[in-house]
């Protein structure tokens, strides 16, 4: 229930879709799970929690719409002012290319070991060039942390995977043993994806700060593994029909467990929101040679960002399918014709595209964000169990 606030004249509500202000006609009729729709754009509202102190806590009658659109000439909103804050990206491909040249040199000279430090230098640059509401982000990861994460991941997943996938064949074992080992290797790989996703996300968020406040991720890897494996299985059983729901569930888990300081992100997107578009995209694929997925990708990004909120604010993404198409096709040709050397420019193009189209609107007072102990954890290692040891691969 976003944009709910109280003024002298009663309870008000702002639709997060069209930003129309509504007055709650009879707040006494509101009760948890009462449903209503925005009169302007039909966006549904649900009363999530009605506290005892609030006047909003009574049953609504069927057919009685509890909302009333506030008159345009409503007096100025003195309590809360919804503010739009922009994201931005100031980096350029040339600087990043310079960084990557030195990185390649040092990586070659150190037989690849420097790769992890190189990654940190690139991220530090990209994060430092990203700004929100006039302040730059900062990346706090270190090369030795990434290196340790890599060693850990190789030990726990890489080496067992290689042994299972190739060992029996090289040793000339029986066919059934080879097949069993292959299957086990496949299982290990599938289980590794969610673990790595959570590990990488936790690591990146805890190493990211804005105005000195660290982000964090509080989801448990084990929960995500369960969610992922169930979803992947359902996806296979339903021949992919389940995919948009699976996608939304993953997004829900990943976003709603992410925090900035003491504030948690919220995500209220549903699989149904994209199911129609997804089916359409699948059906159009043979006709449009797959190019239509750019439009789906843009729609998905818009939907997911719009369903993401933080404190009293909501994100908006305005990128369109045509823009995604131009960006990605351009990047593809840049990379193919330079054998990959154009990647600093494609990276900055990608970053600029996302950040230029992203805004955060709402009455949230960002100054009230406070550092939480969780987010200040310096290493993210050994927090809660073996799976949460902060693997970092990407």
């Amino acid at each position, binding site marked *: 229930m976003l944009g709910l606030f109280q003024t002298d004249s009663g309870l008000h509500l702002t639709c997060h879709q069209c930003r129309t202000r509504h007055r709650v006609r009879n707040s006494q009729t509101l009760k948890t799970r009462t449903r209503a729709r925005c009169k302007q754009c039909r966006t549904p509202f649900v009363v999530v929690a009605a506290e005892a102190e609030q006047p909003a806590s009574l049953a609504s009658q069927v057919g009685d719409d509890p909302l009333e659109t506030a008159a345009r000439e409503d007096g100025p909103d003195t309590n809360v002012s919804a503010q739009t804050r922009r994201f931005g990206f100031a980096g350029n491909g040339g600087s990043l290319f310079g960084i990557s040249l030195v990185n390649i040199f040092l990586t070659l000279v150190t037989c690849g070991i420097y790769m992890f430090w190189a990654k940190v230098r690139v991220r530090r640059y990209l994060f430092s060039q990203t700004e929100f509401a006039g302040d730059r982000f900062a990346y706090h990861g270190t090369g030795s942390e990434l290196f340790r994460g890599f060693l850990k991941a190789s030990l726990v997943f890489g080496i067992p995977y290689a042994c299972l996938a190739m060992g029996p064949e*090289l040793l000339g074992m029986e066919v059934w043993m080879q097949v069993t080992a292959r299957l086990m290797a496949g299982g290990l790989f599938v289980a590794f994806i969610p673990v790595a996703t959570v590990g990488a996300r936790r690591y990146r968020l805890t190493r990211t700060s804005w105005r000195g406040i660290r982000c964090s991720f509080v989801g448990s890897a084990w929960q995500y593994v369960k969610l992922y494996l169930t979803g992947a299985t359902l996806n296979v059983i339903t021949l992919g029909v389940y995919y948009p729901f699976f996608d939304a569930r993953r997004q829900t888990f990943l976003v709603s467990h992410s925090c900035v300081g003491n504030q948690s992100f919220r995500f209220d997107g549903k699989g149904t929101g994209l199911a129609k578009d997804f089916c359409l995209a699948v059906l159009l694929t043979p006709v449009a040679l797959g190019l239509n997925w750019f439009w789906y990708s843009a729609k998905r990004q818009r939907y997911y960002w719009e369903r993401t909120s933080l404190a009293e604010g909501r994100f908006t993404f305005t990128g369109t399918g045509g823009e995604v198409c131009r960006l990605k096709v351009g990047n593809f040709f840049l990379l193919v014709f330079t054998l990959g050397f154009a990647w600093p420019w494609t990276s900055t193009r990608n970053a600029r595209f996302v950040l230029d189209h992203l805004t955060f609107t709402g009455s949230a007072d960002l100054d009230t964000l406070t550092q939480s102990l969780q987010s200040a954890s310096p290493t993210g290692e050994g927090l809660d169990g073996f799976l949460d040891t902060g693997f970092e691969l990407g």
Partner: protein
Amino acid sequence: MGFWILGSNLASVTTAKAWAGYYLDGKTAARQQVTVHTSAHALLITCEDGHQMTWPYGAIRQTQGAYKGEPVRLEYGAEPAQALVISDSGFLYTVHEAAPTQTTHLHNPLNREVRVRLTYVAAVAVIVIGGVLYLWGIPGLASVIAPRVPVEWETRLGEAVIEQLAPSSARCIDPPRTETLDRIVAALMGQTQSPYTMHVIVVRDPKINALALPGGIIVVFSGLLERTETPGQFAGVLAHELQHILKRHTTRAIIEQASTSLLLAVIGGDFSGAMAYGLEGARTLGRLQYSRQFEDEADAQGMRMLLEAGIDPQDMIAFYQIMKEKSPNPSGGVWAYFSTHPSTEDRIDRLTSLSNAASTKPATFLPDVDWTRTRALCRALSPQTADPVSSTP
């Protein structure tokens, strides 16, 4: 300037310029407007409410501000650190002027030129190192490792793909004629010591091609066999393929491809999305380059093998001539870089110069063999239809 060094912090505060910035305490996201002064030993930060902080230079970490247009960000204290952000990068000059010896760990904009020049040096070094690795390092590594790979691994690899390349149902087997082919292999191998058991499999397939599988199996398509005019010409093809096996080209190719991938992973660092296509392009060009090197080696060593076996080298050249007429391939120019094989013309030229080493013209190879009959291995056995070339113009 002795006075200046002896002077107290207060003295230098009064002379140095004040910088506007904001301070983050690491506890909340609230920005506090501050003014910053430099002294000989520390930064002096004054909040709007008059509260003052002293940050000794040695304990300050700079996390941003090394690139043009980036605000200067300094951190101080244990995590979660306090931070000071000053958007005017001119501040850095002042800091370095105020305390040149204590601020060497902070970015100095005066050194940016040096950094740019070092970047150029790195670029040149990358090109040189990459080129050396690509041209000599990777092939060298492969030729060191390949001989140490157990023959059983190669044999198993060959067996794993043989059914796909030469399905049992498509194999042409007729003991008297197949033995003739084995005789040619034996003649070529001569006294050569090798851990492999060489074996020729003829497959019913109109393509003019032959393949060497690791571990000793040579697959010959009937299309190629039927184009050869003499046993000597076929021996030329076999000599080439035998050298692929003896020189372990498949194993070396696998090692070279793996190391190229590794090298590109190091350079590219990222295999996601479109990047993979760009790197795949680089990898393919590398693969083709190495493949052409193998073909050259197999040609040269095959010719040597032919000469040692006392077979007329002109036979091998003659067959390449036939191939050239049957399938002219675009050669020369840029196309040379996009091909797995060197152009047939170049190969003929090279073989001709190699064959000049032969002093005397050798006797006819296997004069007692009815080659017209042998090469029709995949045809019906009746002697009337034995000549495939005349029956399929």
